[in-house]
């Protein structure tokens, strides 16, 4: 039953990312809704669920992306993000809101940095400034959506 429940969540998240990201595209930058859902699930349900969720949603994305060049990278990145985000589960009682929020923002920034370092390595060698802009733009655009979501469902409160 639990497997079924999370399969549905993965499937719906994947569909949502596939159907809606195009409407929010800014040039070559897409918001990563899967990452936002992964963050919520990891912080809410812990490491096991977060890691598996990250792995499978990443696998779905790579299978659907069609490119062969970095196949397996998205599960790797999402798995890592899910795993490290899960350490924030229950930390709202120990950390104040600012530290808590800063931590999940840093996780997202790191996630995008690793992803960008691998995918845009050529850009990094040619123009580090362009690389920096690319990384920050991609990260901040997703963080913007995550930030908007905080007004409706704050991560700080779901972390129990």
């Amino acid at each position, binding site marked *: 039953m639990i497997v079924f429940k999370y399969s549905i969540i993965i499937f719906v998240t994947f569909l949502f990312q*596939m159907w809606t990201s195009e409407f929010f595209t800014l040039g070559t930058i897409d918001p990563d809704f899967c990452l936002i859902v992964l963050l919520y699930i990891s912080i809410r349900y812990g490491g096991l669920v977060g890691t598996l969720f990250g792995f499978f949603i990443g696998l779905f994305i790579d299978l659907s992306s069609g490119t062969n060049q970095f196949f397996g990278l998205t*599960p790797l990145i999402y798995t890592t993000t899910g795993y490290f985000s899960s350490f924030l589960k229950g930390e709202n009682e120990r950390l104040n809101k600012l530290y808590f929020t800063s931590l999940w923002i840093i996780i997202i920034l790191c996630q995008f940095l690793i992803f960008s370092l691998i995918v845009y390595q050529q850009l990094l060698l040619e123009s580090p400034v362009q690389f920096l802009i690319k990384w920050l733009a991609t990260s901040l655009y997703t963080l913007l959506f995550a930030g908007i979501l905080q007004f409706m469902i704050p991560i700080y409160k779901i972390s129990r």
Partner: protein
Amino acid sequence: MRNLLLFFIKNKDHFVFAITLFLSFSLLFNRNNDEMSVIRGFSSDFVSFLSTPLVKVKSLAIVNEENQYLREKNLQLNLQLESILYAADENEKLRELLDFKRKTRLNIIPASIINKGIQTNVKSLTVDVGTSSSVMPNQAVLTPHGVIGKTVQVGEKSSIVQSISDNNFRLSVRIMPSGAVGILRWSENNTCKVYEVQKNVEINIGDRVITSGFSKIYPEKLPVGIVSGVYDERGSYQKVVNVKIQNDFESIQNVFIIVENK
């Protein structure tokens, strides 16, 4: 063994992370594997199936916009086409007029029809030349296809032309090659009748009808029309000839007025 199992359960998060990390690296390093390509082929079909509703919604969303754009484009192209066709037609007519003016030995001036009479008793045309262009009453008006009337009233910058289609219009004509002469008057539907033609003259369909030159208004040998029918009047020594007028009175725009016979 039990302790080992408990250890695994206690640290399941870390173990799962390690396993998924291992699997991810395996995928990354074996991405060019043939079996992987087969799996990706299946997944591609599945994703395209999932994408179908979105593609349909998007195509529906743009179809209205595209339809509107195509309607506008269609209208613009139709207007352009009409304009081009009109210009081509006008160009052809003007070339014909120019050619006629060059070849004729008559002293003619060009005129444009600015109005067509709406009176039922007199069929008339108004042209944009008058006394300022040496136009006088009773001057022949024609096109390269033939006579269309004569001036009846002349103003300074415009003149009224009695059309050949007026019931009171008469014209002395000669039918070639027989040379028979007669009086032409309008009948109906671009057809005139020539009366007072001798019965013993041989006239065939397709013969040319020209002005006879008996009139002071119309110089001789101006084209009038083509014979389209011949029949005898019972109990008479004359025959009646039907003549098809080559001018289309509905579409004439430019004419010539013979101001002086050279």
